[in-house]
């Protein structure tokens, strides 16, 4: 569409400028420009003949401020030329992208052919009309108990993993990508994977995992690795989501998007902001970080009358494991919950080390219960949470006062917390538990308490389910005596 014959005005505008007056960090100032537009795509030709891409951040009269995605190394003032392309950054899209690998700006790097586009879309997308949204409520079984049972993921949700350096977030993300399914449905699915500033090794882990399981043919990968230009990362999540929107809402696929590592993305954004000398917000990140992240995360969801969906799992490493750092903090304010990994559990060799208490899936309530998982699901998770929380409190108390100072009941909770971490949270990297197995495991663990302690479970479910696990309770009680 855009390759139509250029109008007279556009032809004139496509002239080259050799009028760079200032280069600072990733930014260029070009003067004497006619008709530059805000957010316009720019092509920069270095003296070596190398071409780079950029985007207009601000225009004032005939001066355009341009951010260069591949950085400004090697760029000089007298020889470098700049062309304004009279359009935003667009991504060519087609079904043939499945199975392919691209760089962070969407250029093929797997040696395969260029994409012959079905459509081209601006990578910034447009906001989904809130009135057009359909509420995400379809349960996704990930086979991971700590997620399915306690932090249930639903189709169209955005649920980040808050991790720390050295924690197995990539393994968990790969496990989710491998195992995620909607019960009783055989539908077209796809994975779109965006890497921002991660190492070759980490990227390689995902690619191999996708290859092993054959998922690669249903995947589109965008890789901006640690040694790739940092500013390019600003475009990567947008390129990823533009692809996801196309697959989901044009081609009716259920798309799982994994973005890793959002921390690197935010650092690139901070670099631009610093170069523009903007008033910094907390820890030097720009004041608009919230809005910027929202324009990425909010692209997940469902749309009324469309078959496809976008489920988004961004991964970020919290600097110093600090949840109040602006990146996890602002992410948490936008996403529909968070899965937090814990270093303490990791040290106890528990995989996946999901910190159950501060983790939360806000959409779980709509995705569970009769007809979706099982009638007793809500009560069971309320009770597991309460019991685990009390167990953790008892363990804290015991650190100060010694275990002997605990009441008998608190000792029971103490023990429960340990068993719960080991058996419920902990599981194998290749272990896939059905939701029924997960729920039954919950009952089994809770049956160690006297019935009166199970206040959060309705009587009718206690009557129905508890007796099945009662034997267990008697045995344990017997042992104690």
């Amino acid at each position: 569409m855009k390759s139509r014959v250029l109008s007279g005005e556009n032809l004139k505008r496509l002239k080259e400028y050799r009028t760079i007056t200032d280069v600072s960090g990733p930014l260029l100032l070009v003067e004497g420009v006619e008709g530059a537009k805000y957010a316009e795509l720019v092509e920069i030709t270095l003296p070596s003949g190398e071409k780079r891409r950029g985007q207009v951040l601000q225009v004032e009269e005939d001066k355009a401020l341009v951010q260069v995605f591949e950085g400004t190394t090697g760029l000089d003032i007298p020889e470098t030329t700049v062309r304004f392309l009279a359009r935003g950054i667009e991504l060519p899209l087609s079904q043939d992208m499945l199975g392919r690998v691209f760089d962070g700006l969407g250029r093929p790097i797997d040696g395969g052919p260029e994409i012959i586009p079905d459509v081209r879309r601006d990578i910034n997308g447009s906001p989904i009309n809130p009135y057009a949204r359909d509420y995400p409520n379809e349960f996704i079984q990930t086979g991971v108990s700590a997620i399915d049972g306690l932090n249930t993921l639903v189709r169209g949700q955005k649920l980040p993993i808050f991790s720390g350096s050295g924690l197995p977030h990539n393994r968990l993300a790969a496990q989710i990508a491998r195992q995620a399914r909607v019960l009783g449905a055989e539908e077209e699915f796809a994975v779109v994977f965006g890497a921002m500033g991660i190492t070759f090794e980490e990227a390689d882990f995902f690619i191999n995992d996708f290859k092993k399981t054959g998922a690669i043919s249903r995947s589109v990968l965008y890789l901006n690795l640690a040694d790739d230009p940092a500013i390019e990362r600003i475009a990567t999540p947008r390129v990823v989501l533009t692809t996801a929107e196309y697959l989901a809402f044009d081609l009716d696929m259920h798309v799982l998007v994994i973005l890793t590592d959002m921390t690197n993305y935010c650092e690139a954004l901070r670099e631009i902001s610093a170069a523009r000398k903007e008033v910094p917000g907390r820890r030097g990140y720009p004041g608009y970080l919230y809005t910027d992240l929202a324009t990425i995360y909010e692209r997940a969801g469902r749309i009324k009358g469309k078959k496809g969906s976008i489920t988004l799992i961004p991964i970020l490493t919290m600097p110093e494991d600090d949840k109040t750092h602006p990146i996890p903090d602002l992410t948490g304010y936008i996403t529909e919950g968070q899965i937090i990994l814990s270093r303490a559990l990791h040290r106890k060799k528990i995989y996946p080390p999901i910190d159950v208490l501060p983790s939360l899936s806000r959409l779980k309530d709509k995705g569970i219960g009769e007809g979706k998982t099982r009638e007793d699901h809500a009560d069971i998770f309320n009770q597991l949470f309460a019991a685990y929380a009390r167990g953790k409190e008892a363990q804290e108390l015991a650190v100060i006062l010694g275990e002997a100072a605990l009441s008998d009941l608190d000792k029971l909770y103490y023990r429960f917390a340990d068993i719960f971490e080991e058996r419920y949270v902990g599981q194998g990297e290749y272990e896939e538990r059905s939701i029924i197995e997960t729920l039954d495991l919950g009952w089994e663990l809770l049956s160690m308490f006297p019935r009166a302690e199970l206040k959060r479970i309705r009587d009718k479910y206690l009557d129905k389910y508890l007796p099945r696990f009662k034997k267990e309770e008697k045995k344990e009680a017997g042992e104690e005596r």
Partner: protein
Amino acid sequence: MKEGRIVKVAGPLVVAEGMSGQKMYDVALVSEKRLLGEIIELKGDLASIQVYEETGGVGPGEPVYPTGAPLSVELGPGLIESIYDGIQRPLDVIREKVGDFITRGVSVPALDRNRKWHFVPRVKVGDVVEPGDIIGTVQETVLVEHRIMVPPGVKGEITHIEEGDFTVEDPVARVRTGKGEIEIKMYQKWPVRVPRPYKEKLLPDVPMVTGQRIIDTFFPVTKGGTACVPGPFGSGKTVIQHQLAKWSDADIVIYIGCGERGNEMTDVLIEFPELKDPRTGEPLMKRTVLVANTSNMPVAAREASVYTGITIAEYFRDMGYSVALMADSTSRWAEAMREISGRLEEMPGEEGYPAYLGARVASFYERAGRVITLGKDRREGSLTVIGAVSPPGGDLADPVVQATLRVVKVFWSLDDKLAYRRHFPAINWLTSYSLYRDTVKDYLDREISPDFYDMQTEAMRILSKEAELEEIVRLVGIEALSESDQLLLEVARSLREDFLHQNAFHEIDTYTSLKKQYLLLKLILYMYEKAKEALERGITVRELRQLPVWERIARAKYISEDKLEELEGIKKEIDDEIQGLIGGKSKEA
């Protein structure tokens, strides 16, 4: 009007020249795309315009068309059940026009121009009317009678008025004024940044009943009052706002999703038409207006959204209704202000927020209140404003929280520790406050019971004492406490788990009437009384803990509103079980 010319584009901010003679806060259309914007700074010939749509592809040299009118909303039949964006464009109509994604330059009137409403006059030819007088009504929904008022500034004698089916553009009446005859239509326009006038302000002294136990019993808000809910992410701000929008006994609810999630608005759109108002049995949507400028929608329109919402709210207040407005989240509004201010290169105040942050926040909340409206009949209307605040890292030192706390009268402090323990609503009972507690005492004495106030005080005493005792327990263990202190801890636990804890997603627990709140609280305190007596008669806390009646108390909140007499039954069980203990003891002796 004279055209201007763009000289600069930086994100949502556009600077144009040739703009002398324009007024602050007037609307201008930017570029041939005619993107809606508002003049927010004038410097000589230059005007800075904040643009309510994406500015990609716009550049210097393009035209700017001033409109000479300030940013206004349309007020008339058709507001209820609508969902608008931040500048009052109906999102359902936008979807019909341009599809599932919002594209630029869509222009749609806020009120349907074709729909006919049945207008019934309330005055007749010859009557003399003044601003605010109700000249007729339209049954807008089963719940809302829309009262058509004489707009501010119009005064005179009715020369024509008739009953019939009209669109909002049709004149329904004519008034002979000093300046000639004026036609009155069913809708009026009002600039969003100007508070609508009223006759006088009154002190709000009637509680707005929300059905949320911790709020109504301990930290009440009034009709016409102000409240804020600050808290870190995931602590329950939105759920509380939704709960208030659902269950408050206000006549009209305005819900502003300001820079928050799209799915939360969808949730409201799906749920509200299904939920029944406990007072009328009609769907809650029939009294609700939604303003949705989600986080991914243009940031300048987000700044405008709170004003759009509150102006609509004032309009219904002027009809003589009690209106409740929820804004989730005012922090996103403040951030939008900060972003625009940054682009204007204004001197930043704290955390980069503009120096006028406090003034803007204060004047927003000041638009709340209980008032005597314009009009000869001296109607009373009220507007309650409840804002969520989302401070970075949950830190209450945040400038937006601080600016808000300086003006609002109720502070519901959300605590992430409570949220992690799934104690919802995660309102911290030790740090929250309501300055209306004494103001609503008369009402509670009259409507519920004269001892309610003292019961609240007693319950709060138990809870604060618990916090003190827990410190001790942490150091030396529970056994070191006296029997009576141990009992107090038991009762405090019951207060927390069986009264304060309230599950928004449980069909019965989600709403508790004042009467039931009173009875539940009474039950727990009654148990405390009886248990204390038992202690005096030599019963131990250990024995008391074993009583089955605790579990009955724990489940009392699930008793439905039409079976409240069952609560009396539990009282009897308390008597019997404790009597049983005492009896058993004396037999042993």
